[in-house]
Every structure is written in structure tokens, then in C-alpha cells.
């Protein structure tokens, strides 16, 4: 058997949509054996969320589900029935980590942990299990709003913008995975498992790039200002001959001005650059129109200036850097066809688990209930008949 960093870690996922599935995916892609438990009535809601592979909704063709559930085994189980709960307890008795996001109160973590004190349980929600908003209903946009990131994103004279994609959910899943690993370290040292709760609102509020401490220090409120960096300038997005380019002086106005051919750069004192952004943009725009974004990108990089191209998502797969690093792989899927699979968030030298596709709904019921738990084919069909699996 191939060995990967987390090959001896066993995880049960009671996840829907993005956060808990992303946490479990991070573990699975590094070798953990993850059993994803889906409800027998249609499964994970991500199966019904898009984008879909050919644009037509189909539970096995949701790109969101296919991305978030690689390398997992999938079973169906209604743990709200008595029989279902007993099955879940059996699964959990042999697990190291349980990660869930079924909403506060959906799962009795205390009861689950009773049979396995070494178990680490991670509960992810928008607001956490306690506090004045604990009973409030969450959504990704709600976490981004209350977490402070929206007020900092978008144009000052228009409505605040969320970061595109369910980023509040992803971020909570990422935090869950890393804290679960820390708790596992503690468990291995001390023998004690524990319960962890993660709130996506708090995860968002934790990454505001120093803005909270800035406010605490001098009362300054950072405000949204389109693509412009809040303090450093130039750092913004402007049009080039054929598309948008991120221009960036990296704090070195002199080099930047020389590179861009701005006459008399000493007119702008370093401390005035940000407040004179309009003037600077007016000088940059005609100059940027002379070349393509790709030319600007490579030429600026030759000067060690951190310019970037504003790419759209569909330009990523053919990108030479992604290609050279083998970021994308192609895998087969029995229903969705050949899939372009996005790669790992980091490369562990010598420990790359080949991408294994996401499970079909209930695909591993036989393997898990018969192979692992020892139920007979007859018992399995009974459970199916009762709607438990």
C-alpha cells in the first residue's frame, strides 16, 4: 500500500456544501481515509449547486461537489433513525476525526464522543455554537458581511462586494482542517480527544490584514476603494492594450517610475503617493495602453516589479506555470466524463497522492457496511428498505 503523510488517519465527514467537505478533502488528498456520510435523500446539497459540468444540473456532475470530495469514500446514512445512529456510532468508534457542518444542534457531539474519548470532533458553522447569533441562520455572504471583509471590498460609492466564490465557507474548512491536525497532535501526545468549534464569521474577521489592530491603535477605519491597495501605491488594476494588468511599485516608486517612463517622479513624495492615486493613474493609463498585459507582466518582472496579469478562470489550465508544475490533472469519472481536476494547495516533495475522483452517491455502501462493519448482503438490503442507507 502506498503511504502518504496522513495514511493512518481515519476521518468521518458529516458535511454539506463547502466548509466541512473542504476540510475533509484537505485530509483525504494527503492520504487520510475519509468516509463521507450523505443523507439518503439526495445527498450533499453541493450536488445540487453549480457550476455543472455541461451546464445542466445533475447530482453527479456538480463541479463544486466533484472538486470538494476527491479521494473520499461515500456512503449514505440517515443517522436520525435509531438504527442509523447505531451505524454511525460504529463508524465513529474507529475514527480519529469527525468533521461536520450540519448546523448547530444537528448532531450531539457529546453523545458521539462518549464512546470514543480519543475522538476529535470539529463542528463548523457560520456563528459557532454559543453567543447572541448562535441561533441565526448563516450563509456564505452573511459570513463575509458580518466578518468585515465585504465592507472593505468594492467601490466606495457602491454596495460592498463579497469575495467571489463561497470563500467564507472555504476559509472555515481550511481553519477546521488545520486545527483538527493540531488537536490530533495533542491527542497523540496526551491520549485526549476534544471538541472544536469553528465559526466562518470569526475566520473572516481574523484575516483583515491588520485592519482591526489598526483601528484599535489609532481609530483609523480602512475603507473600500475598488482595486486600489488601502495604503501602498501604486498597487491597482488598470487596462492595458488587450486586457487588465495589476501594476505594483512594491514600495519602490523610483524604480517603478523609471520602468513606466514617468517624467519627474520626484514631483510625488512617497507619503503622498496614495492620496494622489488619481493623478498617477492618469499618467499610467496611456502608457499601459501601448503594450499587452503579458508584455507588461514579463517586462516588469525583469525589473523585479510584482506586476500581474488579470486572468480569467478559463485561462488558468493552459497557463505555462500551472502546466510546468502539473497543477491540473485529468481523471476519469463514470458519469461526468473526463474531468480536469485542480491540484493540491501545496506540493509535498515525494508525497503526491494521485487524484481520486469524488464518490457517486452511496458508491461505497457495500465496501463500508459489509467490508468494514461486517453486515451481510441481506442486512444491507433491509437497511436500504428501511431508508436508513
Amino acid at each position, binding site marked *: 500500500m502506498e503511504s502518504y503523510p496522513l495514511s493512518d488517519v481515519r476521518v468521518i465527514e458529516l458535511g454539506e456544501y463547502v466548509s466541512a467537505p473542504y476540510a475533509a478533502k484537505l485530509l483525504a488528498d494527503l492520504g487520510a481515509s475519509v468516509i463521507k456520510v450523505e443523507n439518503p435523500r439526495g445527498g450533499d446539497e453541493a450536488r445540487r449547486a453549480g457550476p455543472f459540468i455541461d451546464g445542466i444540473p445533475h447530482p453527479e456532475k456538480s463541479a463544486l461537489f466533484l472538486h470538494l470530495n476527491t479521494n473520499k469514500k461515500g456512503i449514505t446514512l440517515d443517522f436520525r433513525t435509531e438504527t442509523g445512529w447505531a451505524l454511525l456510532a460504529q463508524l465513529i468508534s474507529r475514527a480519529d476525526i469527525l468533521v461536520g457542518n450540519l448546523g448547530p444542534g444537528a448532531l450531539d457531539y457529546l453523545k458521539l464522543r462518549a464512546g470514543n474519548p480519543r475522538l476529535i470532533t470539529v463542528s463548523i458553522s457560520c456563528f459557532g455554537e454559543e453567543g447572541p447569533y448562535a441561533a441565526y441562520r448563516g450563509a456564505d455572504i452573511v459570513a463575509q458581511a458580518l466578518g468585515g471583509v465585504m465592507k472593505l471590498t468594492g467601490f466606495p460609492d457602491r454596495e460592498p462586494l463579497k469575495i467571489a466564490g463561497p470563500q467564507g465557507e472555504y476559509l472555515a474548512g481550511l481553519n477546521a482542517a488545520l486545527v483538527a491536525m493540531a488537536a490530533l497532535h495533542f491527542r497523540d501526545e496526551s491520549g485526549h480527544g476534544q471538541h472544536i468549534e469553528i465559526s466562518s464569521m470569526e475566520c473572516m474577521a481574523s484575516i483583515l490584514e491588520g485592519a482591526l489592530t489598526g483601528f484599535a491603535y489609532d481609530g483609523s477605519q480602512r475603507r473600500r476603494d475598488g482595486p486600489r491597495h488601502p495604503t501602498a501605491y501604486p*498597487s491597482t488594476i488598470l487596462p492595458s492594450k488587450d486586457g487588465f494588468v495589476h501594476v505594483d511599485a512594491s514600495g519602490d516608486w523610483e524604480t517603478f517610475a523609471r520602468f513606466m517612463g514617468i517624467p519627474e517622479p520626484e514631483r510625488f513624495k512617497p507619503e503622498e503617493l496614495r492620496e494622489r492615486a488619481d493623478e498617477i493613474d492618469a499618467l499610467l493609463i496611456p502608457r499601459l495602453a501601448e503594450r499587452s498585459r503579458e508584455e507588461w507582466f514579463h517586462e516588469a518582472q525583469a525589473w523585479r516589479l510584482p506586476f500581474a496579469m488579470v486572468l480569467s478562470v478559463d485561462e488558468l489550465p493552459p497557463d*505555462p506555470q500551472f502546466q510546468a508544475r502539473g497543477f491540473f490533472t485529468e481523471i476519469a469519472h463514470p458519469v461526468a466524463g473526463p474531468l480536469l481536476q485542480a491540484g493540491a494547495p501545496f506540493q509535498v516533495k515525494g508525497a503526491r497522492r494521485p487524484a481520486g475522483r469524488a464518490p457517486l452517491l452511496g458508491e461505497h455502501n457495500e465496501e463500508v457496511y459489509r467490508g468494514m462493519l461486517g453486515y451481510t448482503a441481506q442486512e444491507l438490503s433491509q437497511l436500504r428498505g428501511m431508508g436508513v442507507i
Partner: protein
Amino acid sequence: MERLPLEGLRVLDLSQVYAGPLAARTLADLGAEVIRVESAVRSTRGGPRPQPGAVYPQGDPGRRPFNRSAYYNEVNRNKLAVGLDLSKEAGRDIFKKLVAVSDALIENFSPRVMANFGLDYPVLEGINPRLVMVSISAYGQTGPYRGYVSFGRGIEAMTGLSDVTAYEDSGPIGPGIAYADAVAGLHAAFAVLAALRERRRTGRGRYIDLSLRESLAAMMGEWLVSLSPKRMGGCFRRVERPPRAGNRDATGLFQGCYRCRGEDDWIAVAIQSEAEWEAFCRAIGDPPWVREERFADLLSRLRNRAELDRLIEGWTIRHTSEEAMRILQGVGVRAGAVRSVGELFSDRHLRARGFFEKITHPEAGTHDYPGLPWKLGLTPGCIRAPAPCFAEHNAYVFGELLGIPQDRIAALEAEGVIVRTPIR
């Protein structure tokens, strides 16, 4: 003493700005002993002169601005700091001694810098085969862009996130925070912990090559996977770029951000099911338009969204975001006030959960800082120490931990190998 999950682990933090320091801070928050190794020049905390754009307590940089920057002090809490010049051989020798007694190393120099120092993984692994090292870079340690530089905002552009974080009718904008840096830092912390778990079994460390761009792309995977059919036949066909959708990028629900009564006051609302739509209609007083055919189901509401947005805003504008949130959440509608940084400090939920912690920094004073975003039942943790002052822990690290005699430390200081204050 209260136990912490990563107690007993030692991490060296050679990193600058945001991604690397956040990775190391995450491990520090969880109980690891994190030692920042800082140089006397070009340190991320700045030199003797105030940094443009930096925020200082009461706006005053003080005599040692490098100990008073809000940004630095937020991402370096719970850490120790030493001053050491790695450009000198004696400095590198001391660093190697630190590596020998450490579990992990986090760095985010441009690729090749560590190799030029003679401190790349093959060398360090020879000193300590149990060492887990993570190199964080913009584009990765290999490939045609390996030497290219970028901050988070450039990476958001290169990953397609700036393109779609935009209004339906605007150009690309991107997140208002260095999101790519944060995401990279958290992935790096996770990677270190996973490699340490493996070490328990194998007794050996790992080298992790983390690219900001790849770690952000992993959180945009649904768009990438959805491109699959375009890949058929072995070549990529140019397809239309995904549309800019503003706040309405989630499928299967109706959501938006609406103006409220106060100044720059907004609320985000997401309506997922028909039951939630019904609850929403009741909450806003069942105006006649909610029964109109054009809003009868999700598809109709999405089709006529401009009209519906205008009507919804007609209700939200009569309330503050706080009132609107209470009313809507009161009937089970997903809604959240769009909090400013200042409003977060007084948010009753964050306060009740103890999200902010009051800490005294010896040179920056006493302030509320955002705390740990997780609740661990058995090993909760907290901000145990403010960010370190420059070279604050030289005596502990060089003297106590490495056992370098006092007179030798003094000699190394005279040579500028061990440093006590930044030069620029």
C-alpha cells in the same frame, strides 16, 4: 499551566509581510514556540524611520517604530524574536544550530535565496532529518515563473479571483484584503502539521513547496473543474470567461447586498428556499408586489432581479442594518449587517464569544486585539504574549537555548552577527 495542543514544538519563522508570518502565528496560537529570526535590514517591521502607510498607536511612530506597527504586531503575537544576520557566515552557523533543535521552518524569500545562503532543504535536512520546512512563494519553487515576485493582490489577479470579484458592470476589482496571503499562510500551517503527523510514523521531515497561486486556486476549484468539457481532444479551446456576478455568484439562491438607513450602511441577505422567501415576505410586511407572477419562484426572481433588488431596498432603506438583521433573522431569513472594522469591535456576538483580547505590548500600550478564531474545548489557548520587540529574545535563544557563552554573544554583537536594533 494551561495545556496547549502544540506545546513542545519549536518553529523557526524566517518569513516577511503576511503569508509566512500568519502561518507561523497560527502555530504559535496553538502553542508552538515560534522564534522569528530577523535581520537588521529590510525587516518587515521596518527600520528606525516610520514606514509609509503603517499605523502606529495614536498615530505616533515613537522612537522605535519597528516595535509599534499595528500590522506587524497583529501577525506576530505569541512569538519570540531574535536579531541575526544570515548574510554573515557566523550568522548562518548559529542559524544551523537553531535548526538542529527545531521541528519546523517557515520561509518566504524568493526562490533561490535560501540556496544562496547555503540553507536550502538538502543542507538543513542533513543537520536535522526531522525538520519540516515550508517555502512559501508567489508561483512555486519550479517552473518558468519561479523567479517572479508578487504580493497577494497580484496573485488574486493571476488566479482569476480579481476578475470575478467585481460588479456585473465593472472591470475587475478583487478582494479588499490580501486574501491570497491569508489563504497561503493557513494552508502552510496545515501542511506543517500534516508533515509533523507523518514524522511521528516515519521519523523524517518533509519539504513543502507552497505557491500562493496554487493555494488560492484550490479554493476556486469548482470553476476550474467546470471547465472540463473544454479540455476534450487534448487541447484547450478558448471559452467565454465566467461572468462577473457581483454579490450574486452563488447558484441556487437569491442573494444581494442592500442599502440601509445609516451612512454607508448595508445588509446582506440570502434567500435559499421557498419557505425562506415566504418568511422574508412576511417580515417586510407582505407588500402586494411579493405576490406578483414575476417573483413567483427562484428562477423568476433571478430573471427579474434588478426590479426585485429595487423593491427589497425600498424596505431595507427604512431600517438600520442592525434592525433589518434582527427582523429578518427573527423569522429565519439568512441576513447579516455589513460590518465595518469599527463595528466589529462592538459586535455583540464577537464580544460575547471573547473574540477580542486585551493585551499590553511594552512599547505599543494596551489594546484590544482580534484573538484566536477557533474554540478548542480542552485546550482553548489565548494571546499569551504580544508581538515581540526587535531582538527581544536574544538572551533566551542564543544564551539559554543554544548555550552560547555570554562573552561569545558580546563578540558576535560587536561583529554585527547578532543584532539588537534594526539599521534600516
